[in-house]
């Protein structure tokens, strides 16, 4: 039996370009992008901010975690039209004035190995500490439940957070 197969084609729409303005790490940016371009791609490709990583692209790993209007979001799930007028903070902002205490704690307690989950993880810890400066166990587990790390087994990450308490 012969099967003539081409991959099922989704309709590829001609992408509509839009102008968006957003504030990234304190800098106003106006860019022309496709309306549905993902924030993670805008950051990594248009703005060369490759500190934000990409791994699952479906909101399950947190490698792309950034803050949008002070709330932690997965940049792989946010589209260009949703960021217009928003304030975005990425890992690059955290060390603008020297290392952030979270970063120091990660360095001292082995909060990372390959480092690929680290930018997202550090942003998630920041979101946690912004809300709960002295988090309890439940708050730590809750806050980091969306961030996967394959290297550390999380213990070094927890040591880092406890160190800052």
């Amino acid at each position, binding site marked *: 039996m012969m099967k003539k*197969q081409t*991959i099922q084609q989704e309709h590829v729409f001609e992408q509509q370009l839009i102008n968006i303005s957003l504030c990234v790490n304190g800098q106003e940016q106006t860019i022309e992008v496709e309306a549905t371009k993902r924030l993670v791609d805008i950051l990594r490709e248009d703005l060369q901010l490759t500190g934000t990583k990409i791994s699952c692209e479906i909101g399950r790993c947190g490698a792309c975690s950034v803050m949008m209007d002070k709330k932690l979001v997965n940049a792989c799930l946010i589209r260009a039209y949703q960021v217009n007028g928003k304030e975005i903070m990425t890992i690059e902002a955290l060390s603008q004035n020297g290392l952030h205490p979270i970063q120091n704690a990660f360095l001292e307690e*082995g909060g990372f190995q390959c480092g690929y989950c680290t930018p997202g993880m550090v942003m998630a810890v920041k979101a946690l500490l912004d809300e709960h400066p002295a988090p309890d166990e439940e708050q730590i*587990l809750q806050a980091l*439940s969306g961030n996967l790390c394959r290297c550390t087994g999380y213990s070094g990450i927890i040591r880092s957070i406890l160190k800052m308490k």
Partner: protein
Amino acid sequence: MGNYTSSILKTSRIRPDGIEKVTGKLSYLTDLQIQGMLYGKVLRSQYPHAKILNISVEKAEQLPGVKAVITSKDVPGLNGFGLIFPDQPVFCDSVVRYVGDAIAAVAAITPEIAEKALHLIEVDYEPLPVIDDPEKALDPSSIPLHPNGNLLHQASYVNGNVHESFPHCDVVVEETYQLPRQMHAYMETEGGLFIPEEDGLSVYAGTQHGYKDRFQLSRILDLPETEIRVVSSPMGGSFGGKDELNIQPYGALLALKTGCPVKIHQSRRESVCAGIKKHPMKITVKTGATKEGKLLAHQVRILADTGAYATLGPAVLDFAVEHAVGPYVIPNVETHGFCLFTNNGVAGEFRGFGGNQITFALEGQIDRLADQLGICPLEMRKRNLRKPTDCGPVGQEIAPTNGDELVLKEIAHSPLLKTEKAHKQDSWKKVGTGVALTMHGGGLGFGRLDPAGGKIALNQDGKIQIMFGFEEVGQGLLAVIETLTTKAIGCSTADLEIVIGDTDKAPHSGSSTASRGTSMVWHSLERLKGPFIEKLVTQASAISDYPKEQLVLGENGVWLCENSEEKLVVTYKQLAEEKTVSVETQFDFPTTPNAIPGGHFLYSFAAVAVKVEVNLVTGHVKVIDIDQAVAAGPVVNPIGYLGQIEGGTIMALGYTLLEEAQMEEGRYVTNNFDSYLIPGIQDIPASMHVRAIEDLWEGDSYGPRGVGEIGTIALAPAIARAIYEATGHWVTKLPVSRDEILQSRERI
């Protein structure tokens, strides 16, 4: 919570790549972008097994923005790759054997156009019967997937006579263990940048052995190796999964064809579909012992599903066969292993290298026998342990070691084994504890090319450059190199420049695999330090007129050490202005002298104690405490060592309780982290403790062993034993199924 301690966690120096990692400034190779680069994408097979009748690429080529569409016709050299045999086609043109098989690749000006072009490539297939089980593959009536049939490799070890000794055993246990297809799940998927150069090609793509990639690419591209530069570091994790070529052939071919830089970065779905996994194994074991608990006979049959291509399948099987008796002395052993081709993905190198599977079976047998004999599991192990100067598990000469005895003794003191468990529990939650032991070989073993080496130089800028062909995959190799070099030479970290993972700049060091990196850096420095120091002090002596016997290397330069006087005599910079210096070494990883394919010489050991809580209503198994003792020689970098053990342990927890890359009829059912579950922060135990035993056997001159794998092996059998204690049910299949736990309750 957060009781994560260790006997070794003193302060470590911050790792050299640390600041760049925590600030997000480190450029991984998949972060690289360059002006005018194209985006590459690979068309993978629609079928797990099919004939290809026709491939037509015209429509794809005509799509505006597409710069090249390539197929097997565009491979100038060998259309194949593979670390042992190059049996995996770069591009298939007549038959596909798994869903990750590549048929064509596209380069276009945007990733969207490249993706669209893939949809325009037409492939006519004739589906063939799918072999989705190694038992089926063994069946002589099954269609052969390769010219030599479906048996990729067979390995055996026989000593004594098991058949004659079983009747003399007071108790015999027989069981079949089933181990799952685990995914490496490195956070950074495969990818990189490929740049055509005037004199060849530069490849920036993660791998665990840059020189090997260069060799394989040179065969494919028909380019001399000297015209290919492979930059292979840093990486966002690998765990064995990036040792084999992945996207490199496609990026390289597209870059050379278009004359433009090409970037490829696989999506997670593509990575799952094309990437290698851990070997699923079915291990049937019959083991007998006397009523005193002496093991007499051990018969093992291993069936490994290697998937569509060889890659390191034969070596993984050899490893499993070698480790079938672990650290125990069993007078009668018969192990037969079979590694079979199927249409199920490709299995290859994975942290643990066959050790996880075989140790689950071995330790499971010991626990069952101990239980039937009414002997304490620790005591049972002790009674059968090898002596320090005994030979290795396949009768080969090994470096004498009592690591097994030490870790077992240490774990016997674990407080978690002493806790009262009977009362104060909810009736639907049962607690149990378990212990397991493992012995794990380092290096590639006898008969495998396993060269290592390194280079040290004083360069023109007065920097001491230490160079290795190794890669930083996350394991902390840079910190190891920094620590060992400053210690061996005497210079400071500021004087040092570490060069790794670049075939144009670093020498051959062999692969960053098999727990060999740390060990090989140490061995290299043992060889490099004498001649290098000698050259520098001789030069310094000539400049300064101090006798060279009074000169040592220190911070910033060569120092005079005379009585209590210490002063800087000449800086490295001044020395370099006179003359640069370099010393290189090449040697082989130590192996056993006995001609046993893959036979190891250096081993490390771990013993694990675990406490679990089984919820009888949901079937959920929660690990609440893990304690482990590791014997792998001196600790080089405490944080790195601890991180390897802790991280490896949690990866093993996933293997035991959560992870399986499921396939149905040769197709992946689990395609991403929504269905393939790796441990999250909620899955880890509230307490973990690691003790490092640094002592080596007297006269052992082999230094620190690597610890990349040793933390991943013994947890699974320890959990299985703990579940038995909690529920009375022996688990034989991983990952542990909640349904199975629930059903086992119903039967009781």
